[in-house]
């Protein structure tokens, strides 16, 4: 049936005039060289419209004094110079990096160890491997609300557990260290499993024969881990670190909900991140220009810091190379 509707076999092609033939060859060459770009073009076109254009437009806004009502006025880089002397901005930068370090370092180490454990022979491996992904499936809002209750001052579980050890009630939102710790816990809860699965994928690409040879030479499991797994996992570690850096520096929802939805991140801005400060300026104070400047600073921070991390990790994990 299907044959019926097909065009007849191109019998005429063989006897086509040379001109048409050359066109055909040229087209098919073009097909080989151009098609791949055409196939990936939808992403880049969408990125142009929804990524690059907003990026550029935000930069334009950041060069203006731009409030919700009334006209905007071009002021050059004055939003940026104001930002550099804004203690609330630097406070947010400090918080963001503080929480990034507290959250990401233990998270990646833990994920690495977890992946190593999951890489062993075990019963029902898929069950356990999927299990570590469960926290990621729960919505971030739900996680944040539950954890915020756990870190409640008066009726929270964390304080209840601590009181058995004679620790006085901690007002988690009131201190920098305690609010950072609480927010970092939420982040780790959600992302450790995800990162460990990426590590696991990387580990499974390492040839098993290396471990066998090492085992025959008498290398302990620990030694195998540090001498084989970690160096060969370098590309994966770089990838995971950069993804975590981007995510960590954009931290927003967890600290926001931890502070009852207030953009200021606590009475003394104890856990306000840069992303929250951006939002506060743009959508609470409605200073779009200034908020856009914060957004661009955040973008630059992520760029620089990712590059920095990339160089460090390449060095640490690659050693000899």
């Amino acid at each position: 049936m299907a044959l019926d509707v097909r065009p007849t076999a191109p019998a005429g092609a063989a006897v086509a005039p040379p001109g048409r033939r050359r066109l055909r060859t040229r087209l098919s060459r073009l097909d080989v060289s151009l098609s791949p770009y055409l196939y990936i073009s939808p992403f880049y076109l969408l990125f142009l419209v929804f990524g690059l254009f907003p990026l550029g437009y935000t930069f334009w806004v950041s060069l203006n004094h731009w409030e919700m009502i009334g006209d905007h006025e071009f002021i050059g880089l004055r939003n940026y110079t104001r930002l550099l002397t804004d203690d609330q901005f630097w406070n947010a930068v400090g918080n963001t990096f503080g929480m990034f370090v507290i959250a990401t370092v233990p998270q990646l180490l833990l994920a690495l160890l977890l992946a190593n454990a999951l890489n062993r022979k075990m019963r029902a491996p898929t069950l356990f491997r999927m299990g570590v992904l469960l926290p990621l499936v729960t919505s971030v809002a739900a996680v944040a609300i539950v954890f915020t209750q756990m870190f409640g001052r008066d009726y929270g579980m964390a304080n209840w557990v601590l009181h058995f050890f004679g620790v006085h009630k901690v007002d988690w939102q009131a201190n920098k260290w305690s609010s950072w710790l609480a927010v970092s816990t939420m982040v780790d809860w959600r992302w450790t499993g995800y990162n460990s699965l990426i590590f696991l994928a990387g580990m499974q690409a390492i040839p098993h024969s290396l471990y066998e040879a090492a085992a025959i030479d008498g290398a302990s499991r620990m030694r195998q881990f540090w001498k084989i797994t970690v160096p060969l996992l370098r590309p994966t570690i770089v990838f995971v670190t950069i993804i975590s850096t981007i995510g960590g520096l954009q931290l927003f929802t967890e600290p926001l909900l931890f502070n009852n939805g207030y953009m200021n991140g606590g009475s003394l801005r104890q856990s306000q991140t840069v992303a929250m400060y951006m939002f506060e300026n743009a959508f609470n104070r409605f200073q779009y220009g200034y908020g856009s400047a914060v957004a661009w600073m955040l973008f630059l921070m992520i760029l620089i810091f990712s590059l920095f991390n990339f160089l460090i990790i390449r060095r640490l994990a690659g050693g000899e190379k």
Partner: protein
Amino acid sequence: MRVIRHRGRFALAVVLSAALAAATACAGDDGKSSDGNEKITLTVDDFGTFGYQDLYKQYEAQHPNIKINERNVPKLDDYTPRLQQWIAAGAGAGDVVAIEEGIMVKFKAQPDKFVDLKKYGAGSLQNNFIPWKWQGGMSPDGSKLIGLGTDVGSMALCYRRDLFKKAGLPSDRDAVTKQWATWDDFINVGKKFTAAIGGGTKFIDSPETYYNTILMQEAGKGSNQTYFDQGNKFVMESNPAVKAAFDETVKMSQAGLANGVQFLSDPWSQALKKDAFATAPCPAWMLGLIKQYGGDGQSGKWDVAGVPGGGGSWGGSWLAVPTQSKHPKEAADLVKFLTSAQGQVAAFKTANNLPSSPQALNDSAVKAFDNPYFNNAPVGQIYAPAAMNLKPVYLGADNQEVRQAVEADLRAIAQGKLSPGSGWSKAVSDAKKAAGTG
């Protein structure tokens, strides 16, 4: 042949789907114009508790073509930025929006964004409102009527009758009122209470609720302004009312009276349910909130007494129709209905929001209303007479942003994380930043 059959099938499918589409389109048309009247859904945006549920039902019954959809945001602080964005963007806002007194100046500064309600026959309603409430709904140049008043926030103080009794303090509402003529007296009562009860029960809920109460009182006694003067100039530093309210609140925190939970946050409602604070300032609208958040478990435990420092007002709103509404006439009619004397009486019965209409305030249903949740406190008697004598306090365009900045510092002092000595200067500098002048 098969090709043709294919085509035939395709043609059949096209005809069939076209017919189906036409049929559904007809059905849609039929549903729309059942009796020549278009079905209209009016969206009402508000915050907190306005107590309109019964009124909506009543209105829908009287106007079968109208359906009302309320979008409520619990916290005013969350509601304001959303409304600001909708109004600025020219899309997204409801057909009717509630505007609280603390943000009214901000929105009145954009009169072209709101429908002139006089065009829809509201101009003759002046006598239905207390004069200043009517005036408050006018655009700055007095040419347009932007909002019709809903409620006013005349002031009382809610206290836990049972806990006062337990602490050996007078618990009868008149005796309670008598023992705190001034806020310093109030603090002394608080100290006695804390000494007797101790533990997890604090005397006051949040520093910010008391601060706002005292600020509005002090402003009402003097210049009738807070952070900004009538020209929207930042006058927080030179206004004695702000400093007085700030200092009095700090005193409460220093005496260890404050629970310190953030007003209307989850911890606040938990603390309310778990007896973790014994008093809260009660502008009329607060009665509805305590009932809503406290639930049945707190019924009958609270009572209402007079506020130290004599009278005052905090809060109260207007209803307005943004020009972006597609049904301005219907929306304006709904606003007139909800803010009518009878509408205000109904809202009072549901949520205890105190009417801004003299007729409603004099209505026996308001005057004689005892609130069973608050130990049958005669809330009509407590609130209604004071409302007629209230004077409006001018709240500048950036009032809410500044208020939030000062509140955060007061909370930091209550948390013990900011020294009371440096609190005021930090509050001033934070306030300037929030107002965009620092």
